[in-house]
């Protein structure tokens, strides 16, 4: 009976130690995974921001004449409830057109800055 009791206590102690180390290891793994997940999301956001921004510039959207607008998750231009905020800053005013910067932000975090030459006749493409 005594031998049986000692064995149970040893098993219980071992189990406790195993649970303790497993918890620590699982915590570290969760931290690494969540870090990786955040980085992956950030990379996706940067890719989308670049794509949508470049698209708007190349299509010479008339919205580029506005100081700010938004992109939704699919890259469509909206005036509200979009995922990406876009701010247009004029860097240099030219004789006919202006040199501008497009700042694309998500949750107040700047994702990318694209410089572009804003034509006066930005009346085609996009909405």
């Amino acid at each position: 009976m005594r031998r049986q009791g000692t064995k149970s206590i040893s098993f219980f102690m071992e189990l406790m130690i195993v649970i303790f180390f497993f918890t620590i290891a699982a915590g570290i793994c969760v931290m690494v995974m969540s870090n990786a997940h955040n980085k992956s999301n950030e990379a996706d956001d940067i890719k989308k921001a670049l794509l949508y921004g470049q698209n708007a510039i190349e299509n010479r959207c008339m919205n580029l004449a506005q100081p700010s607008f938004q992109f939704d998750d699919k890259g469509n231009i909206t005036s509200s409830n979009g995922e990406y905020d876009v701010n247009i800053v004029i860097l240099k005013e030219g004789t006919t057109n202006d040199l501008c910067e497009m700042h694309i932000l998500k949750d107040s975090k700047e994702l990318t800055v694209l410089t572009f030459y804003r034509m006066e006749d930005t009346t085609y493409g996009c909405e």
Partner: protein
Amino acid sequence: MAANKKSVQIGLGISSILMIFVVLCMMILSLLSYRETTQKYTITQRQKEYQEQYAQVDAHMQYVWYEMQVFQYDNVRAWVENETINNLLKEFEISYEIQEDVCILKKHVNDGQELMMRLVMDNHTLRMDAYQIVS
């Protein structure tokens, strides 16, 4: 009766071996996932830098091109020697070469790449003959 009371016993050390196996699997999976994400992030950052640089160079070149079109001269050199254009070329760090009636503007994009714009004199105005990335 005593023989019937036998129960299944888990040996000492089994749980430790199991834990080591599970933790190793978890660690390997999470490290692989982290490595892949880091690579993806690095590629995205490089792509972002390149696109930003290219967009800036392209915008500067276009700005200079449209400003040049405002003026009319008899020879190509007069355009680049115009005070406004010359200041713009210096400000945007655009280099130029003149060969008879041809003016070549170049701006560095990134390692070993330049955006080149070739302008040809055409009846007191400039005509864009080529606009391309050269290595």
